[in-house]
């Protein structure tokens, strides 16, 4: 463990990252104390609880299963919605890209539905789906779906025509073209779409949880956690919820980066 930590902190990037976080916490602390120390606050910044209080609030919720169940609830919603969006969105986007007839039929309705913000779907899906849980999952799915499809479509359509021509000249069949050229050529866009889609999924799931009252799962989700902290008037706990989401989002996007790195060894920089 010590060796691991030593190795971690010998890395300049890691040291810089932790240094930046500590400086940020320090400034936050000064900002929150400005009012007490000088008698003046900086644009109402004196209202912010100091980081120590937030940490204390975190220690307060940490032993409670409700808080951790909220993590589980939100994560499972995000992952469900996101995975379904990937499973449906990638083939759908590729079909739009490679088949003219399919594009002719499905692209116009897709383009009409796409600009509707996912949150605008919340009331309708609350009425439409039998359970709150399904409504949240559906809205989460929509959040990622449109982004993924549009990225896959754009990526597949933007493949350098020289690649296709070269492959065809060498005797590639339609099957080879799709699996060996179109699919790997689209992978970078698929992962861009996934990264953006994942971000939207978190935004949407939080808002959906706030609106729907947390669904039926225990804990209610991180969105519901923030909302109920707000109702309870605990500013510290609201911030605990916010930071939790920040960490959850960071974990999700680094997971996507890792997977992307694994599948695209030719892209050292992602």
């Amino acid at each position, binding site marked *: 463990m010590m060796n691991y930590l030593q190795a971690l902190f010998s890395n300049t990037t890691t040291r810089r990252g932790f240094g930046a976080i500590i400086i940020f916490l320090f400034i936050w602390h000064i900002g929150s104390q400005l009012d007490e120390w000088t008698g003046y606050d900086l644009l109402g910044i004196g209202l912010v609880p100091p980081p120590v209080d937030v940490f204390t609030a975190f220690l307060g919720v940490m032993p409670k299963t409700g808080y951790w169940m909220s993590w589980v609830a939100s994560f499972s919603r995000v992952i469900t919605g996101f995975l379904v969006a990937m499973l449906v969105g990638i083939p759908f986007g590729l079909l739009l890209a490679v088949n003219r007839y399919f594009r002719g039929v499905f692209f116009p309705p897709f383009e009409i539905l796409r600009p509707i913000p996912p949150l605008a779907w919340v009331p309708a899906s609350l009425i439409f789906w039998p359970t709150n849980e399904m409504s949240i999952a559906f809205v989460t799915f929509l959040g990622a779906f449109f982004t993924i499809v549009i990225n896959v479509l754009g990526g597949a359509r933007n493949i350098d025509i020289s690649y296709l*021509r070269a492959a065809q*000249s060498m005797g590639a069949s339609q099957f080879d073209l799709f699996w060996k050229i179109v699919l790997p050529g689209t992978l970078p866009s698929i992962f861009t779409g996934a990264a953006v889609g994942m971000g939207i999924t978190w935004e949407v799931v939080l808002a959906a949880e706030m609106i729907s009252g947390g669904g039926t799962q225990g804990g209610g989700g991180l969105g519901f956690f923030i909302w109920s902290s707000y109702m309870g008037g605990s500013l510290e706990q609201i911030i605990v919820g916010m930071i939790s989401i920040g960490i959850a989002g960071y974990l999700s996007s680094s997971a996507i980066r890792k997977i992307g790195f694994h599948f695209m060894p*030719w892209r050292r920089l992602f």
Partner: protein
Amino acid sequence: MAKNTSKTEKKGALSIKNVTKIYDPTGVNVMAVDNCSMEIAAGEVCMIVGPSGCGKTTLLNAIAGFHSITEGSIHLDGELLCGPERPKAEQSAERMVVFQHGALFPWKTLQENVAYGPTVQKALSPSQAMEKGGQMLAEAGLGNFIKKFPGEVSSGMARRAEIVRALINNPKVLLLDEPYRAMDALTKQIMHESLLETYDRTGVTIFFITHDLEEAIFLGDKVHIVTTRPCQLKKTVEVKIPRPRSYETQSSEKFRKLLVEVNDAVHEEAVKAFKAGEREMA
């Protein structure tokens, strides 16, 4: 068609007859190639020189089968590629293109790139294709880089690998569209030597588009100078410098004289093209 039957029985005689290509993208007819004819003997290095945007690439695309032609015909070794009955030639591994901007698949290593052709043609098993690809890359001096992705090697190496990828398919004709355009003079020199070496080894017919006159004379058996749009054959200069050629050739008296001859012809067309461009802008 009389087949060229020299001692090694070279293949890849191209006969371009009265080819015309009219693009009609927006209802405005643009004549890219107008009644252009040229004969390219089997195993010849044929250099096409002309002003930018004159329709050279259109001609190459017609031979490769990427685009149709409007009139005329193109034959390869006496067989019809495209003509009145069939405006667009079929794409085939007997005519391999090396693209202007390079088209190695970025997601495959150099070795996998080279092995792609024989694998999809099922000419070799995947492992045999990989082995042969590695061998051919090593012959081209890329033995240490076969496991690298195209993004990890220099543009010169990538271009050499791309030529290897074309040659593994045993093409009759190699079609090169300004492959060394963005390279510095030193890299170009090395590329030229490597291409000549490859040519001496394989004797493949080479159809090579370029703007670089010295390159054209240094590499070519014949230099075809074409007019500004629409593209027509203006003049053919035969380069009677014996092979194998080395870079010292470029300082010879003969080379200089040919350069002046080609330059005069091209300059006239370049001025015309420039004036036409000015008119279009005005």
